[in-house]
């Protein structure tokens, strides 16, 4: 039982149940503000009947020409509301927005160690397009998968033909 609605500034006051999860980063205000001011339609929150934040998705539209695409910046669901298909609902929403914006594909980055997430994205139709070496900084740095799903505009699904070789973070546009 969920309602999707645009994320608002005040949601930052009550997203601790989601953001205290160690795999969810709490960014600086300017980061959230940038998304709110530029791509508000890509920043959605799932709310429970009692007004709790169940999860949220942040994204943006970027690229030029055939690289015009939707990008998932963050997707997270509170531990209390997992296994309800919420992540899929949020991803569907973002894909719909990207379709309306006439994007060619939707992409996202995920840690190669995050098998649960990779599995979920695969079930949602995403493929590993390429590996980005040492994309996540840490001790040690960790590689990322750049996963993609083609939108209807990419009729020939050119955007999701996997690369055979890994790339460096600086090669990712």
């Amino acid at each position: 039982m969920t309602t999707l609605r645009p994320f608002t500034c005040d949601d930052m006051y009550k997203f601790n149940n989601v953001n205290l999860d160690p795999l969810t980063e709490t960014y600086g205000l300017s980061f959230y503000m940038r998304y709110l001011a530029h791509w508000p339609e890509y920043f959605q929150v799932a709310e429970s009947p009692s007004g709790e934040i169940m999860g949220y998705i942040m994204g943006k539209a970027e690229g030029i020409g055939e690289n015009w695409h939707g990008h998932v910046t963050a997707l997270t669901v509170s531990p209390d509301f997992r296994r309800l298909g919420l992540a899929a609902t949020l991803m569907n929403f973002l894909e719909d927005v990207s379709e309306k914006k006439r994007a060619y594909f939707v992409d996202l980055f995920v840690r190669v160690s995050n098998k649960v997430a990779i599995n979920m994205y695969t079930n949602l139709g995403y493929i590993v397009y390429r590996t980005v070496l040492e994309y996540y900084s840490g001790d040690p740095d960790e590689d990322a998968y750049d996963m993609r799903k083609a939108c209807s505009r990419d009729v020939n699904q050119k955007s999701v033909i996997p690369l055979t070789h890994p790339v460096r973070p600086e090669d990712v546009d």
Partner: protein
Amino acid sequence: MNAVTARRLQPLYSACESRNYKQALAIADRLLKKDSGLACVKVLKALSLVALGKEKEGWSLLEPVIEQPMLDLTTLRTVLHVLNELKKYRALAGVLQKNLVYVTGAEELWTLLFTTYVRLEDFLLQKQTAIKMFKLFNNENYYIWAVQCLLLQCKFDEKLEDTTIHLSLAERMLEKAEHNGWIKSEDVLDLALEAFILINKPLSAAALLERNSHLFSDDVRKWRILARLNADAQCWEVHDNYQQKILSKFPDDCVSYLEYIRSVFRGDCFNVDRCRDVWQFLSVTTAQYEGEKSMLRGPRFARLFFVFSCLDSGYNELSEVLDLPSLEFLLVDYFAKFGDKLVCSTDLGIILPSICPSLLLSFFDSLQSAYDNFDKLDSSSNLARHASFQRLKRRSGLMDAETCESLVALSESLLTSNLTHARDDLLGFSAELLLSAFLKSGCVKHLHHAALLLRCALNKSPYDARLKVRLLLVYNQLGMFASAFSLFSSLDVKQIQVETLSYLVDDIHVACGDLERRMHHFGLCSSFYCSAGGEIAEAVVKAFRFGTFSKISELTAFKQKINASLAKLFYSVELAFSKCFGATHKQAFSYLSAIIVLNPCFESLQDNRDFEILKHHSDPEAQSLKQQHTERAKHCRAHWIQHRILLAQLLCCSFFYEKKPELLSSYKNHLSFCTSTFGSAVLGEFDGYSFLYSHFKDYKPFGLLYESLLLCASAFFSAVQVEHQNAQAVSAVKSALTALLRSTKGCLGSVPFSSVDAHFFRVLNFVFEMFAFQSLVLQSFTRSKLTRKQKKELPILSVLQAVADHLRDLRECLEAFIQRISALPINNHKAVYDLLPEESRLFSTQLADDLKQNFTFYIKLLYDVKKNLESKQFL
């Protein structure tokens, strides 16, 4: 700029462009030696200084340049860049205003002026600039900006008393925009809708939306807005139509169900036929998803909520008319389907606390007896259902009556014999029950047991933040502060979370006397809030640029909340300080010198927005914090003054007792701060006088205030007498004295005669002490064996000069005051006393008597002062 000058400047520009600022400085100095009047060189030097981190020097170099009536375009651009770097937005706006008269067609400069006003949050000037830009550049976007600014002004400008005219202007502007075809995007349409909603014309908004519906990319969003607008206009048929459209597309949308059902049972528009339609729609939707393997909770919950709302609104007879099932039946049915899910207790928790106690008991009885008829699940799911049942009882308040023993027994019933196999959520819930048992009995063993359970859960799920928070609270109760801190650190609290989660440890910092950690935390928080204000302003600028009008009001409101949070933070830190004053003087002194003085953040305590906290601050997280805020609203004025008084007294006492004049310069900022804030407190708070007395009959803030001022003054005199050759100490004293005299002057100038009481005369006394101080220093000067030249070089002279300047200023204030008093029958002091406000007479009988006896004496003293001033006996 002529060709020769341009050629000479080229190396300087090159050095700046290549960011070789040291070289740029050297070149600039060389050029300035040849021609000291070159404004562009000064500006580039200022730019280099700012880039090298010497902001103060850069600013002092820039200040005279920006005073010039006109700058060439290149210099102007550099000036604007430097001012932007320095975040001197007020000055930047001033320079632009002056120079845009001469520069035509510079659209980017006009845009910069507009965005500067956005950063300054000056809605009126934003609006005026946008209109000018629209006229100059004939770009309709600026026209839309102006409308947005108009709305911001109506919503956030507290000085604007009547918004009607402004809103009707916004309406006309939007009509023109639509007529001219300027409403071209969803964002602009959003703005127009916001305006109509503010004007309270929902149907006009709906009509506008219908006319421009092609602009909406998302149908569901459009339906939601139309549903709300029609609800505002009470057009229920249309409203229901849109709600049903939304729910047909999203049958699990809880908020839409709740809104829809609540609208049906509104007292002012209740209609049985409408109820029947809604119930039918809900039943059909439920049936539609009944057969699916994974059943949706939404439609079932909606039926439940419908029946609940029907009873809750008092329409009991409707149950028969519509043949509604009983609420109890629906509740049991919902629990049977979803009882093993964690969300069940959250869902039903919306309804259960509001239903009548008899029905509640009956529900739990039915649930208990229906247990055997529920589908048999595996043992883990059965246990989860049992936990849900207990959670619901807890949420409904039924556990309040449970004894400590039964709570412990219940806690045990949720756990398996081997804790390592127990589920985390059950361990957590079990620990909560033990906490309740502790609160009932005060028996610490329950707390220890709860901590054990939570640690066990954390061993299995080391990253579960909710378990950590629960354990942290248990540690706090047990006084295990070190463990609590280490758990808090592992939560990695940062950014906006410092506001929403700091309360977990704030009080412990003070309780265990760990002020260093408290100050460290304060530093983190204050730097976050200070930078947040600027970041939000930048986001507003971006929203204007991208045309995201739907977010501008939201961001502006958020900025106000962040400002309020900053003030709240100052308040809580001061509260922590004042709690320490209960400690011994020595402790307080070491704390003061080790923490406050060394922490630069403390300087930013020069903020008196404490009073505004409650106006804008909506508490993010806990109800208990909300209550604290409400309490603070009541007492914050008195607290605010009290804290500062305590702080100043501590500073002075420290100086007296420790006899360390070298500390004086490090106290300089704090003394100045204290005295200047006292000044503003006196100026601003005389209106709150009666408020204070009505709330704090035994509290004498103004008495304390002036005592502190006098104490400060004594400390300074003593310092100057001991250290009058120490330039650093003298400079500290000078600045503190300036602040003191300024506040006294403000006090003399602003106090209405009706507010005159014994304390006011204390201020006068202070002025006399100043005169006495001057005489004293002058005498010691005359008697000293120093030569005339040596005397002139003494730093104390500058202090005397400053005092003399202020005393001259005070003269006018005193004279005006004496004139007012002269008009009164001074021979009959009782008559004058009777003119005093009642609260000051009630203030203290002793003081009132004192006042009566001494009034004539004070008047005489005033005349003496006047005479002294006239004879120019002082410097």
